[in-house]
């Protein structure tokens, strides 16, 4: 499983923001392949959220690992984003 940290957070943020610029009503971020994010990864999510606010896009985090769920809780980021257990729930909810 991958990690989003200071080595790749910039590219991660740029990719998210490029997707948001297409102004979809919802962006589902599938976290199944991510083991954990450090503060750089989480702050990249915040940059994406700020761009999403401008384009009225809702970001949903899907299929976080157990470790990722813990990181979201420890950082307080679980209060910022809706977290879905499955892609179906993320897309349909």
């Amino acid at each position, binding site marked *: 499983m991958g*990690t989003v*940290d*200071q080595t790749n957070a910039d590219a991660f943020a740029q990719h998210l923001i490029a997707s948001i610029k297409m102004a979809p009503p919802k962006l589902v971020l599938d976290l199944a392949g991510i083991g954990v994010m*450090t503060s*750089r990864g*989480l702050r990249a999510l915040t940059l994406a959220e700020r761009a999403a606010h401008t384009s009225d896009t809702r970001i949903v985090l899907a299929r976080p690992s157990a470790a990722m769920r813990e990181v979201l809780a*420890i950082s307080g*980021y679980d209060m910022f984003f809706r977290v879905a257990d499955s892609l179906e729930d993320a897309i349909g909810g």
Partner: protein
Amino acid sequence: MQIRFWGTRGSLPVAPHASTFSDKIADALIAAQGRHFADKQEALAFAQDELEFAIGQGYGGATSCVEVDAGKGAFVVCDMGSGVREFGLDTLRRLAEGNRPKEWHFFMSHLHWDHIMGFPFFVPAFVDGAKVIVHAGHADCEEALRRQQEEISFPVPFDWLKADIEFRTLTPGTEYEIGELTVSLIEQEHSHASYGYRFRDAKGSSAVYSTDAEYKIDKMHEESSMVEFIAGADLVIADTMYSLADSVSMKEDWGHSSNIVAVDLCHEAGAKRLALFHHEPTYSDADIQRMHADTLRYEQLTRTGAKLDVLCSYDGLCVEI
């Protein structure tokens, strides 16, 4: 080198209510489950070794003041928050034991009131023959200290202090030999700026004091300079006042940082120990303990190399490095 924490709160000193003690005693009695203690020593050992820290002890409420003690020579201390009163009294006691000069070196992170409020109560400043040198990255440090002792704010004017008080402005990127230590500083993001300090002793042990530093979300690429500054440090004392979520939302631009940014910077820098510092004054002992537990878990989840030892500073903590 010994690092002594005399004040670990940010913003405002706090003091427990009467009910805080009753709560702790009640929780301790429940934990004791009717156990009998032969004497006070046994009871103390139970409180200190078997109870959760937030029940048997507490994190204290004095504002920022951290001593860097090389064991000889002049006394060295970071900031003059309300914890400086006890520091000052303790140094006078140590002077009475002999072998140290009546000389104190302060290193100021910045000039906000929680970091200067203790100076009017720093007893050595009233001692004729004492030498007090205040080092700061700020050229207006003397102005800030004099201002807080103007008559409108305080009954004892700055000029009544009998010690020989000198102010020295330091430059980031330069190393200074001060007493037994080599000292360098780095500018940090905070209103009116703040400065972090790195202290190295003759054996090569190093400690970093980095409080009141914000890591802005639009300047994350600049964090590499702090990583370089703290590289390989034996102890990093870092501002961990807010959750990451708070630091990027309602408390953005308030000039502080989070526990998980501190862990990440220390991991990247290969630092050995991190002391959580500048505790939010609204946090109870239980809140701070919970934050410490969360930080330990985060360090474990994100560790890729050597383990970072995460301490939670409290008034009275002494760390040997």
